[in-house]
């Protein structure tokens, strides 16, 4: 069996393993430390409340009272840290420095205030009483054979005056110690669970996780974009230039080689090199079109329209450049939509329309084709939807049988704070 991962699991495990583990000690440390912290919390809270109330008439009190959530917030940070004693993975949350820097900008957390009141008013008293009982009684019993000689002993109404009594008491004390270990651990685990409930609400953890995921998705899209640019640059600087140089050399060779079979072969080689270049240009365009980088979405979409076999009307009113990932997403949406139109729609014309409203780019591609497009059939638009969702945007395809097909894209144009 693997080692227990928290106090509850340890309690359920084999007694020998539990007693030999660190859990009873960690629990003891947790309960023990709760007492001074609770006491300080009580004093500070009571003081702040008192001063606040008394100075309320001269407005200063408002400031003092408003500072209470900050104090309980700091306590929350400390307590989340202390939860590590009874749970291996401490509750998530801001660090002390982050919490201090955030100051009052963080909304008032009522659970944190509630926890502070609970700790200062109840928990530390319970802990102190429990410790007193659970430590003194077993320890006194264990030491009975010795203590008997020092003074008269009377433990919970049991007079210990013979040596036998002393040794019996010692044995009982050992059993009581074992019981105390369990009880302290139960107390610590229960209190830890309560603290976790109040200080680490599910919602907060989930929203933190969602924020993390969003950030990592945006990072992923950015990385994707950067990688595409890198590949485009590598192709441009490498194989493309070598091919251009090759066509130049072959062109010069054509002039030098005397007419005949040799020249025919050189000419053929030249044509093949040009075809290779043409294909490479097409590939590069699909990876990351240069015109998009240099001139933006309108120019790049015009290029797409010019290349399309179905006539395309472009109406793009975007006076400013947009963030690169948004431009790229929009470009590839149009590219994919036009490819689909050419392949399946049987359309006679396509309209591409893009505009910006309220910091959102809206783009539509509408054709007059047969409709009935199944988005799931092609991975292109599905992949683009993922990219857009990562950017906080969306992509919808309406394609009723009989048409028309409309691809509609929305994407915020302002980067997330």
């Amino acid at each position, binding site marked *: 069996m693997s080692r227990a991962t928290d106090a509850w699991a340890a309690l359920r495990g084999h007694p020998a393993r539990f007693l030999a583990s660190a859990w009873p000690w960690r629990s003891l440390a947790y309960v023990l430390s709760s007492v001074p912290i609770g006491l300080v919390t009580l004093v500070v809270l009571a003081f702040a409340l008192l001063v606040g109330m008394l100075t309320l008439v001269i407005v200063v009190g408002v400031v003092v009272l408003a500072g209470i959530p900050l104090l309980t917030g700091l306590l929350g940070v400390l307590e989340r840290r202390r939860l590590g004693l009874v749970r291996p993975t401490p509750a998530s949350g801001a660090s002390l420095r982050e919490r201090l820097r955030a100051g009052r900008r963080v909304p008032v957390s009522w659970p944190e205030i509630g926890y502070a009141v609970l700790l200062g008013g109840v928990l530390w008293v319970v802990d102190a009483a429990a410790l007193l009982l659970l430590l003194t009684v077993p320890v006194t019993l264990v030491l009975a054979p010795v203590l008997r000689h020092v003074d008269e002993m009377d433990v919970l109404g049991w007079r210990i005056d013979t040596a036998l009594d002393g040794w019996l008491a010692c044995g009982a004390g050992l059993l009581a110690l074992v019981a105390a270990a369990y009880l302290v651990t139960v107390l610590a685990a229960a209190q830890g669970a309560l603290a976790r409930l109040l200080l680490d609400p599910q919602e907060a953890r989930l929203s933190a996780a969602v924020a993390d995921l969003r950030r990592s998705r945006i990072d992923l899209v950015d990385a994707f974009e950067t990688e595409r640019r890198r590949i485009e640059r590598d192709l441009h600087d490498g194989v493309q*230039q*070598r091919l251009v*140089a090759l066509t*130049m050399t072959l062109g010069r060779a054509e002039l030098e080689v005397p007419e005949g079979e040799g020249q025919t072969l050189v000419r053929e080689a*030249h044509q093949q090199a*040009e075809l290779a270049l043409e294909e490479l240009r097409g590939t590069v365009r699909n990876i990351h079109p240069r015109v998009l*980088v240099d001139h933006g979405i309108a120019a790049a979409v015009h290029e797409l*329209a010019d290349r*399309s076999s179905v006539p395309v009307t472009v109406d793009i009113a975007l006076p400013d450049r947009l963030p690169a990932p948004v431009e790229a997403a929009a470009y590839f949406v149009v590219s994919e939509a036009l490819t689909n139109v050419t392949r399946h729609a049987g359309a006679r014309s396509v309209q591409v329309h893009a505009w910006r409203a309220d910091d959102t780019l809206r783009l539509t591609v509408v054709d007059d084709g047969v409709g009935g497009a199944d988005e799931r059939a092609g991975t292109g638009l599905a992949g683009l939807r993922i990219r857009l969702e990562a950017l906080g945007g969306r992509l919808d395809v309406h394609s009723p049988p009989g048409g028309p097909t409309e691809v509609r894209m929305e994407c915020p144009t302002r980067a997330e704070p």
Partner: protein
Amino acid sequence: MPDPRRALRIVLAEDAALLREGLVGILEKAGHEVVAAVGDADALLAHVTHAEPDAVVTDIRMPPGHGDEGLRAAARIRAERPGIAIMVLSAYVADAYLAELLDSAPGGGIGYLLKDRVGHVREFLDSLDRVAAGETVVDPQVVRQLLGRRHDDGPLASLSAREREVLALMAEGRTNGSIAEALVVSEAAVRKHVGNIFAKLDLDPGSDRRVSAVLAYLRG
């Protein structure tokens, strides 16, 4: 076709050494003088100021930014020394760049070609000569793209399909004879189409109507 070929003093800017050397070889073999062959836009501007060349041949994408530095440099040269002919070469062509080139201040000839065209050495050198003579030469691929674009409202809408084909070939810098060959029609027929184009675009007979027609076409 201007013949015999005028020897030009050329400043060349191309960041890839392999291509730069190839270009120098081609230009010098044709009898031109390459007064400077440089690898970035700043050096290009410096040498143009220094050497006062007849023509500039430049790549678009160059250090330091590997963006459209060559184009910016060309626009500056055009603004400061409008007499210098400018031939822009690029690994890819797009009409957005062309619009930028044409929108710079008026002046000498402008050429915008795919780098691959250099491999067709004779055609390339002819294009360069025409640009040096003040004409506009645009890569067939850009012209094809523009041809595909619909001009619903411009003066070009009045042209017939054939006339637009002829205009597209004119934009590539072709002569009537070459156009006739490409379309497999007589040169007389081409002359008739060209006349119709001038008439429909309402071009002043006094100006270089061929250039004006092409510009009208390219500006769409």
